[in-house]
């Protein structure tokens, strides 16, 4: 197999759309990564700065409430509840905008990469306010850096305040730092970020690093934190004095600071183990749970040859014949991808999602995706969502997919499409005969549409 427009849109994009043509060539597919991020501009999410302001107001409310009593306390409690609801609505708005991007984009590979890298650099909010800002992290740190050098993406993600908060970097103090000595602070070093940078973000769990490297990297990271305005900062007082040795190389000997943090991240980004790890992960996500070794090797070699130029690595993947193989069943779409690609196939009007109340987004998208096993932006840990198809095709996960497919499309559309035509809209030329039969034989339009969307031919890519 080699490139075909429909396969490209299904496997590497957001799925087929009756309104938007798939990319006609490999060059067009790759060119979709260049130029401005049209979807992020057209369907914006709450910015990090706006979140930080809301958070400040919310903290102030909570502070006042603690001091207040009687009727005033009750009024402040109501305001706090309203603020909490608002954060959840912000999160839901982000969900809706992501579905819009998937539904309307002409460059679906971008949306796929945004989810891939947001998962590779997983951030989970630990509170309602923080959860409302994960979408802003993806738009600020991930999306602008997905097609440049991996080192830049790594630095943008790892040093973003949301990541620093998530992996406890904010709390990490060098045991020999001025701060620790003065305060007698017992919190000390927190290795969380350093460990995940090596294990998940760069070298991979089998990579050539030791606990000593983790500890040294954690010491090198001390000082990195979040300032009062919510931005990334370096607090020299908390930095561990002296040089640290990571993978045999010395950093931070002259002066602790962001410069040394960037240098070690650059070196980790270009490590051969990182090249293998990233190549393999991309191949697993886009092509197959057990990808062709030749494909992985080809991508990894390109990574090393180009100093981690991600666009070149994607090109290496797409030009390899194994990327287009249809010998085994394709990967199963995770729940969000399933729902968003279904909305795209159904051509849900832009205004329908734009005008939807937060409660509707909750009922029709957010809760169902959770019932399918994917609690949006809240994976269990920093390793993100599972790639294995088996993790998603469980009895209850599949039950939720079927129920969504049968129940939700007619709540999103005024008129359901004719199932006989919808088979082609959703599945293209490759629609299997049993699905065509089911589309004709179902007793109602809702069931026919539901069956087409439930078919493995749509659930896989």
């Amino acid at each position, binding site marked *: 197999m080699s490139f075909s427009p429909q396969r490209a849109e299904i496997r590497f994009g957001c799925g087929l759309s009756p309104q938007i043509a798939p990319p006609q060539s490999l060059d067009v597919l790759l060119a979709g990564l260049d130029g401005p991020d049209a979807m992020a501009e057209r369907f914006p999410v709450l910015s990090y700065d706006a979140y930080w302001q809301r958070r400040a107001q919310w903290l102030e409310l909570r502070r006042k409430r603690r001091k207040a009593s009687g009727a005033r306390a009750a009024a402040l409690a109501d305001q706090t509840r309203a603020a909490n609801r608002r954060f959840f609505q912000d999160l839901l708005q982000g969900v809706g905008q992501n579905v819009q991007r998937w539904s309307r984009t002409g460059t679906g590979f971008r949306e796929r990469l945004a989810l891939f890298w947001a998962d590779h650099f997983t951030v989970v909010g630990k509170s309602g306010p923080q959860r409302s800002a994960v979408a802003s992290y993806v738009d600020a740190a991930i999306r602008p850096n997905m097609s440049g050098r991996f080192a830049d993406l790594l630095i943008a993600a790892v040093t973003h305040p949301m990541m620093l908060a998530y992996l406890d970097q904010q709390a990490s103090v060098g045991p020999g730092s001025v701060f620790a000595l003065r305060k007698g602070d017992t919190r000390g070093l927190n290795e969380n970020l350093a460990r995940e940078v090596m294990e998940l973000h760069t070298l991979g769990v089998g990579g050539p690093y030791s606990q000593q490297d983790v500890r040294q990297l954690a010491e090198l990271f001390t000082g990195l934190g979040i300032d009062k305005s919510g931005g990334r900062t370096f607090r020299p007082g908390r930095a561990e004095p002296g040089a640290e040795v990571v993978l045999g190389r010395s950093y931070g000997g002259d002066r602790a600071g962001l410069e040394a943090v960037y240098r070690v991240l650059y070196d980790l980004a270009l490590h051969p183990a990182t090249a293998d790890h990233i190549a393999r992960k991309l191949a697993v996500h886009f092509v197959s749970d057990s990808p062709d070794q030749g494909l992985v090797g080809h991508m990894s070699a390109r990574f090393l040859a180009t100093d981690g130029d991600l666009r070149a690595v994607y090109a290496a993947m797409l030009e390899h014949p194994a990327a287009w193989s249809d010998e085994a069943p394709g990967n199963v779409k995770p729940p969000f991808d399933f729902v968003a690609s279904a909305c795209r196939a159904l051509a849900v009007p832009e205004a329908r999602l734009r005008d939807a109340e937060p409660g509707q987004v909750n009922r029709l998208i957010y809760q169902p995706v959770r019932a399918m096993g994917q*609690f949006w932006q809240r994976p269990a840990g920093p390793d993100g969502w599972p790639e294995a198809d088996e993790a998603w095709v469980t009895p209850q996960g599949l039950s*939720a997919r079927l129920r969504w497919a049968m129940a939700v499309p007619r709540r999103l559309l005024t008129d359901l499409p004719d199932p006989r035509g919808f088979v082609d809209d959703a599945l293209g030329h490759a629609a299997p005969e049993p699905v065509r039969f089911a589309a004709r034989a*179902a007793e109602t339009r809702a069931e026919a549409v539901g069956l087409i969307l439930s078919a493995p031919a749509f659930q896989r890519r």
Partner: protein
Amino acid sequence: MTRTLSRRAFLARSAVLGCSAAATPFLTPVSYAAAPWDTRLVVIILRGGMDGLDVVQPYGAPEYDALRGALAGGPGQGASDLDGFFALHPALSPLMPLWVRGELGFVHAVSTPYRDKRSHFDGQDLLEAGTAGLGEVRDGWLNRMLQLVPGVEAQTAFALGHGEMKVLSGAAPVADWSPEAELSMSPQAMRLAELVMQDDPLFHPALSEALMLSGEAPSMMAEEDEDGEGMMMEPPRAASGKGMIPVARFAAEQLRGDSRLVSFSITGWDSHRNQSRILGGALGNLAETITTLHDGLGSEVWGKTAIVAMTEFGRTVRVNGTGGTDHGTGGAMVLAGGALRGGQVYGQWPGLEEAALYDRRDLMPTGDVRAAAAWILRGVSGLDRAGLEGTVFPGLDMGADPRLLR
């Protein structure tokens, strides 16, 4: 109606579906082998931080009334006296008959090794990981227990809810289901779904299992809505953690069959404000869950069942300004079941004097929840101490046997 995975029920359903019994891993012959052990275990994660001091109230402690203020309980406030020192929150009074029979017990002043930061998120992660520190493992302690026991099958353990039971996640096979995931389609839609999935190695067996676990025969009563567009199927939603009766009923049905371990969560314990209302509701859920399990299991299976309910941390000893309590440290475990040696409050009581408190604000943890859990696992599955201290709870010292089970 039965939801137990009996061969007969499956064959009846296979006839409707026209699908093959060999297609589902639940029904390979080996899955009818004897279960790896006989005692039933239910592990309930109480998410949000249950206030152990309000559940098992130390009304006999001299400092109790002053510290607890408006939340002070005890027999004078409607709580059931347990032993002259502790009293049980009124919302758990439906469980008092179990206490009297020695089928309800508690472990007081316990916690995970988690200290000081008091985040729900990290606290629950650590509770479910079963390790001393965060980020050491990616699987949960119940799954590691399953990995050590030979003969574990897909239906031995059930995670009920929506993929959030980290305590059961890992390499050992675990079935996941939730009663509200129930599929009910018209017979025609069911046959067609079977048809479109028939050639897929993953979708086909998952569909068969989903239909089987959905229990009821396919509904012939498909309701038409106004425009005649078929059944009024509702969008799927995730379990809320409230209204636990369907979950408990389903759990009991599985445990009466080949399942030996079920785990699920009950939420709603984070009582920063208006604790009497919030905790009363959550405890009502817990009581309902336990009585539903009791009734659903029947006396024979109940007699060999242990239920363990645990939370990520306790709450502050003092009441805050809004009639609630904030995140604390030492808390309590709730134990029930006929396998239990109940009728007592286990644990080493630290006292409520200022100097005895943790950080001068929380109940001092004098025991590790993992040690109590480990002794229960030992009693349930027969695993040896080396496996429990080395693999299930790496680095744990189980200490002396508190003999929690009969």
